[in-house]
């Protein structure tokens, strides 16, 4: 579903953001991208959504070779990719409802269907009550959740998210991640960039680790079926900050079958 072959990206400023990147994600697979600040996570996701083109290598998304996509077919490719932006990119002069409805409008959905699906998406991120609000009157975390609702409302075959939980508290983060995992179950390919290593660990999914633009690890947990319910529960225990309970919760989890799934990452990589 998403295939990178020897992809390199050098920005006009000379910054080499990615180099020799190769990996493949099947349809209905979920993976995380981890790595230090400036490792190239956003750059990678931008290229999946055809916001940027690589300077070397080949990218295939939804069976479409992106290098061969003509300018007038770019919109079609982008409609097949739901994207959560690191900086939300909401339209500040439209209501929350209208922001979430945008992808459906673009796809040409009927009015009644738009309403139904937008409300369903807002409900999933817990913002149904704020549908008429202006984005500026939302907290940053709420804005980020609106961005997530916008990405999932169109039920795209590929879902990419850049740091979707950066402004969310741990419990909400876990719930959002659970939401992404649900999409995986219905056959959506999901690729999420995240710093939240605890959360990544608990999700028990595949992790691509970037370091200065190079893929230094592609970790696939042996027991990938770590229950998502367990994740949400442990996160709830983890909040509010109670070091004792958090440690216990984590300790339990590690003990309860994830120890074998410890990613064999080489330590001591790059200071940012």
């Amino acid at each position, binding site marked *: 579903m998403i295939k990178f072959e020897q992809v390199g990206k050098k920005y006009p400023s000379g910054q080499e953001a990615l180099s020799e990147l190769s990996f493949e994600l099947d349809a209905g697979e979920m993976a995380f991208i981890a790595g230090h600040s400036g490792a190239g996570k956003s750059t990678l996701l931008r290229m999946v959504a055809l916001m940027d083109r690589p300077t070397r290598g080949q990218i295939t998304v939804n069976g479409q070779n992106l290098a061969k996509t003509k300018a007038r077919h770019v*919109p079609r490719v*982008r409609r097949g990719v739901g994207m959560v932006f690191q900086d939300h990119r909401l339209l500040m002069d439209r209501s929350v409802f209208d922001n979430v409805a945008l992808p459906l409008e673009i796809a*040409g959905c009927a009015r009644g269907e738009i309403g139904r699906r937008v409300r369903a998406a807002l409900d999933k991120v817990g913002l149904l009550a704020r549908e008429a609000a202006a984005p500026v009157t939302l907290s940053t975390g709420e804005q980020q959740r609106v961005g997530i609702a916008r990405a999932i409302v169109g039920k795209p075959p590929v879902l990419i998210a850049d740091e979707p939980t950066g402004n969310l508290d741990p419990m909400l983060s876990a719930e959002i991640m659970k939401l992404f995992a649900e999409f995986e179950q219905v056959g959506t390919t999901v690729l999420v960039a995240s710093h939240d290593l605890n959360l990544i660990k608990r999700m028990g999914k595949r992790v691509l680790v970037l370091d200065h633009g190079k893929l230094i690890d592609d970790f696939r947990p042996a027991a990938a079926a770590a229950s998502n319910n367990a994740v949400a529960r442990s996160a709830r225990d983890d909040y509010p900050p109670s070091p004792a309970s958090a440690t216990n919760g984590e300790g339990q989890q590690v003990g309860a079958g994830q120890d074998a799934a410890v990613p064999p990452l080489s330590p001591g990589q790059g200071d940012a």
Partner: protein
Amino acid sequence: MNRRVATIRVKLEKSAAPAPAPRAPAHKRRRMGAWREHHARSFRASLRRLAGRPGATALTLLVMSLALCLPFLLWLLLDNARALGGHLDDARGIGVFLKPEIDAATARSFADKLRRRTDVAVVAIKTPEEGLAEFRSQSGFADALKVLQSNPLPTVLIVTPKIAAASARATPALVDELAHDKHVDQVQYDALWRQRLDAILAFTARVAGVLAMLLGLAALLVVGNTVRNDIVGRAEEISVMQLLGADRAFVRRPFLYTGLWYGALAGLVALLLIAGVEIALAAPLDQLTSSYGGRFTIHGLSWVQAIALFGTSVMLGWLGAWIATSRQLRLGRPQ
């Protein structure tokens, strides 16, 4: 009932009951509906946007409509000045005094010769008798002329030269040639007056032309600049829509409607301004017309011209929006 009748009946039934577009597949019909809906929404939304910031919109409309109506006003002025120039032509006759010894027949053949010239429009003959009668009635010398025993006046030809309103240059050559003709005693031509009038008209026409050109340029620039500013202010919106997979037509639609609204409203305001100017100028126009004894009527903007102005305005708004969006759309392409 044969097959043809059946077909016709089916056709009739079809036209009677407006069925949905027959062969389009369901998803295509749905997309058409969405397309129509997006048009309607863009139409309303762009108007709401303008109404939402009335100050800025009023400012923009004033600037646009001023830039639009000024060239039209100047064009009106120029057109009327030209008509005026045409009417003044008939006061431009050259008085050609033939030598006293020329008789009526020779005068007539000379007049015919002059009439065949390309730079002569009309030649009128005034016999000595007519001349004396006119002289008596017009000049202050009625008493003085009573003492004359015989008619000392020669035959006079009134020659109206055929020249463009703008160029006053053709006449002197004709006057010169006439003055040196063997039949001619003297040529009277109020050259000073005529040169002045011609010069004034030429000057006005040139000034109006230059101003109209500058103003046309200004109209274009203002419309383009206005829509460009509007779009630069919404660059984020455009780029987000592009990222969500909207194609060029979809992104453009609301802006094109905005351009159309600007154009239509500015066109209306411009027409109102022109009507206002026509009212303001009514008094001096009246005076000008009366001095021509009603022979000459100033014409304002006709219906056709009003519609042309409005159409120009709408088209300019649309075009400005189109150009400005094109630029912004190019920025959203992947590098």
